[in-house]
């Protein structure tokens, strides 16, 4: 039975097959390669990547999930890592780089253990135990509850998440923007009475020019569109807004209807009728008192005339998502068709939404339309300014990450100190936890504990500091804090790295905070991904089906 692996080559199939240690090593190599790419962008002094795709589009970013998404990785195991980053992005929104580095480190160490004749299943068990213990430890010992969250910790959490990004230099400024905007979109679910902070409700507008500091929070909803015709008013006060999801173009008969005329005069009448049908529709809308008309589809020049005459502000080709949000904010109903229950066409004034003011503003070269003073202010707009597109895109991504982080802090009500503090504390704790176990899993848990140190190490290396010395100092501080019966060195538990000074300091006091959910999820996801890859002992790559050449 020992020849089983050698026999693998004799298995006749359309494709190649690898098994056993080969696959594991290969998977680990692929995964490490991926992690190495993003490694240098971790932490406040991490650097950015420039990615150029085949048509020459450039992306400059520091965000792990974005980098990996653009890499078009082919190796199946490495793909799992990309998915892992995406998952972290979706569930938490931040920590995407860390999760990838951590998962790769777990695998690297697990592979070493397998080589030293520890069975993968023992390692898997050990990792699972370590993961559970870590999550418990974070919630029990490290998490600092922020019951009634003060602005301070929110700002700090936002600043920490930004620190590694391009906007980090203006951290204070942007943190304030982020916290203000997420607070503005707070909403309470009617049925479950849960408070929610929908990140989607913050719309982000990007405009060229001026410096990043000129970015601001706009009150109300901004549309990146201008009015449909120059003759329309720039500003409408006490707006009554009609949200339409229909075409206001010359009416066209439906498919399968043929127009057949014998008399040329008839033709003219039919043409006139086509125009009139739309005209009547517009008049019905106008009769209801609407003075702002937004539609997702087009408006003919011919039809625009009527709006101009009535002094109504009309905007065409509004994005459907935007329209939905405007409808929610102003209390309007989106109208798909004018048909009523009698089979005629009418426009119900109840479908109109209201806003104090709708006006067109110019920002650099673009005009945008602002809707202010909505019934409910559940929508805000962040206007970002910057030197070029790449910078604006990266700012957008960073702001999105921070929004997610603040939202998590608000929802989960607990934070942990950042800067490698949690990882080191866990590592120290797991070492002593492992020593209490008498089984093979002990080795796996110990390696898990060591693997966690990769994050503070990478942080220090990226900052060009002495990683060995700093991590050792950090570990000894945490060891003291955890093995202290008197409670004197309790505050050492918050020690983390200060990457600018190259020292260790109390990161809680320094205001480097992260949501605790981000850390627990990171450890859970990284472990799950490592286990998934570790369980694989056979890789079968199928060739394209040979039917094509027959």
């Amino acid at each position, binding site marked *: 039975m020992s020849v089983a692996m050698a026999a693998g080559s004799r298995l006749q199939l359309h494709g190649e097959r690898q098994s056993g240690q080969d696959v594991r090593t290969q998977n680990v190599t692929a995964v490490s390669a991926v992690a190495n790419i993003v490694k240098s962008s971790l932490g406040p002094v991490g650097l950015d990547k420039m990615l150029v795709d085949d048509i020459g589009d450039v992306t400059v970013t520091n965000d792990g999930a974005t980098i990996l998404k653009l890499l078009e990785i082919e190796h199946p195991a490495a793909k799992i890592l990309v998915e892992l980053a995406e998952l972290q992005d979706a569930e938490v929104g931040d920590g995407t780089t860390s999760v990838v580095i951590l998962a790769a480190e777990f695998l690297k160490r697990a592979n070493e253990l397998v080589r030293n004749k520890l069975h993968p299943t023992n390692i898997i068990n050990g990792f699972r135990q370590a993961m559970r213990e870590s999550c418990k430890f974070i919630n029990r010992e490290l998490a600092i509850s922020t019951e009634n969250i003060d602005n301070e910790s929110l700002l700090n959490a936002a600043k920490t998440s930004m620190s590694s990004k391009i906007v980090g230099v203006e951290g204070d400024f942007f943190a304030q923007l982020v916290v203000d905007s997420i607070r503005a979109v707070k909403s309470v679910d009617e049925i479950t009475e849960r408070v929610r902070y929908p990140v989607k409700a913050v719309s982000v507008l990007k405009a060229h020019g001026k410096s990043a500091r000129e970015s601001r929070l706009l009150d109300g909803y901004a549309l990146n569109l201008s009015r449909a015709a120059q003759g329309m008013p720039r500003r409408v006060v006490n707006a009554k807004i009609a949200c339409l999801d229909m075409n206001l173009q010359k009416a066209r008969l439906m498919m399968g209807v043929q127009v057949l005329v014998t008399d040329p005069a008839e033709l003219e009448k039919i043409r006139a009728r086509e125009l009139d049908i739309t005209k009547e529709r517009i008049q019905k809308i106008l009769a209801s008192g609407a003075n702002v008309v937004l539609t997702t589809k087009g408006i003919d020049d011919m039809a625009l005339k009527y709006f101009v005459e009535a002094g109504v502000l009309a905007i065409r080709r509004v994005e459907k998502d935007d329209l939905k949000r405007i409808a929610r904010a102003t209390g309007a109903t*989106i109208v798909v068709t004018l048909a009523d229950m009698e089979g005629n066409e009418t426009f119900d004034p109840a479908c109109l939404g209201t806003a104090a003011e709708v006006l067109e503003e110019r920002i650099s070269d673009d005009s945008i339309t602002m809707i202010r003073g909505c019934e409910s202010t559940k929508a805000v707009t962040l206007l970002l300014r910057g030197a070029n597109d790449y910078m604006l895109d990266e700012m957008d991504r960073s702001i999105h990450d921070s929004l997610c982080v603040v939202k998590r802090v608000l929802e989960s009500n607990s934070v942990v100190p950042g800067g490698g503090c949690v990882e080191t504390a866990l590592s120290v704790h797991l070492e002593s936890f492992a020593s209490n176990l008498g089984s093979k899993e002990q080795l796996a848990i110990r390696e898990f504990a060591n693997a966690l140190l990769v994050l503070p190490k990478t942080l220090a290396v990226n900052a060009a500091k002495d990683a060995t010395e700093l991590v050792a100092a950090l570990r000894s501080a945490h060891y003291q804090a955890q093995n202290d019966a008197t409670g004197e060195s309790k505050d050492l538990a918050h020690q983390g790295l200060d990457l600018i000074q190259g020292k260790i300091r109390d990161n809680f006091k320094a205001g480097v905070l992260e949501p605790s959910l981000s850390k627990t999820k990171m450890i859970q996801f990284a472990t799950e991904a490592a286990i998934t890859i570790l369980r694989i002992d056979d890789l079968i790559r199928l060739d394209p089906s040979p039917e094509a050449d027959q």
Partner: protein
Amino acid sequence: MAQPKQKHEMYKESARKKDVRTTNIEAAKVVADAVRTSLGPKGMDKMVASPDGQVIITNDGATILQKMTVVQPAAKMLVELSKSQDVVAGDGTTSVVVICGALLKKCQELLAQGVHPTVISDSFNKAANKACEILESIAIPVNLEDRESLLRAATTSLSSKVVSQYSSLLSPMAVDSVLKVMDPNRPGLLDLRDIRVVCKSGGTIDDSEMVDGIVFDQKTAKTAGGPTRMDNAKIGLIQFQISPPKPDMENNVIVSDYTQMDRVYKEERNYILNAVKKIKASGCNVLLIQKSILRDAVSELALHYLAKAKILVIRDIERDDIEFISKTLNCLPIAHIDHMKPEKLGLAKIVEEVDCGKGSVVKITGIENSGRTATVLLRGSNKLVLEEADRSLHDALCVIRCLVTKRFLIPGGASPEMEIDLQLNDWSRTLQGMESFCVRAFAQALEVVPYTLAENAGLNPIRIVTELRSMHAAGQKYAGINVKKNAITDMVEAKVVQPLLVTTSALTLATECVRMILKIDDIVPVR
């Protein structure tokens, strides 16, 4: 055809026959070896990357073999074997292939010793029959009321999968859903199609649930702002379309006068309005509309009217689901607007759209006079996990189904294989000649199961197998390998049990497959 005088060629011919048999056996054995490492609770997974870049990670023998696209004809038989085990029992798809491989290996040895293939084939058949008898003698009868035993069997089947850590959640689901769809008067007619598993990515497996009612993967149609929640729902399941009618043949409506244009519009509105009014008049307030390929199942205009009439609409119901839905909701599918009668509607307390990860699902709960169906909503963090969870749940469901059809449990952990091994050995002593020899070989082949189980769990296989054998010889017929404790314990006490049907069918199927391969002495490729 061969002329008698060419003695030389005759000899060659028989050598060829031997070659064919050897290649077949070799090829089949390699297949068995390929899946061997995924046997048991500590088995490993396989990753299969198909040419279009799709990746599957699985532990399920049938799935692995199906995806592997082996080309050798005899190897293909093993793939088929695993598939038929999947159909019959649903579980044990890896074991059946592994046993088959071990039997083939023994055949090779027997053939080398000069035993005629037919003799091997017949004796294996006898041995398999005897093995089934032995299994039945050690089986423990189970009562369907005994939920605890059923749970144990489901947990055992789940233990080898990636989702094993969630078995405390998934096995009650499997047991409850099978018991729910079972007709106590006719338990033999259990149809797993009555259990609908809806997979929705996002969240973790912990968020999976069994829904008392029905779940749709679709969203409610709300382009026109229709309702997304309905209390005291009256549900109509319609198979007709609410959109402008289309005759069978190509046609044109001809307009020759401008006044007719308005009429065309008005007619369309009235036609649809009438349909909606009829639906409303029947009291229906939730509408499930079957997907249509001929024309739009429901037009924008119709959605608008339905929204105005406060009717919740779910579009794109698959044709295949109609039967399940009508059974669950206790309603009749309605094929024409004129048949829209109140008595054809199904009644439910709540129909609502619920947020579910990135998307949302529609749940119908509190159904009146619901039929014997069950719905499970599976969640998972990514597609790979979700698909594997689906496959694992299917296996667990099959295990419970096996128990319903044949109500006996046997211990797991390679305990039955070892017991058969010992008893067959004893039995072989009462037989004469070649037969005795072959039966003993059959018994020895079964040792592959405890051996592999121990090997996969990182234990010393030889020590474990010998220890297990001595314990069985000492009369502890339920002793098996407890992989969790890395020791040999009483499997019934350790609550590791499996349905009798899975093992008997694995044994008989594997034996039949071996006999088939043995009898082949030539491969003739036909173009």
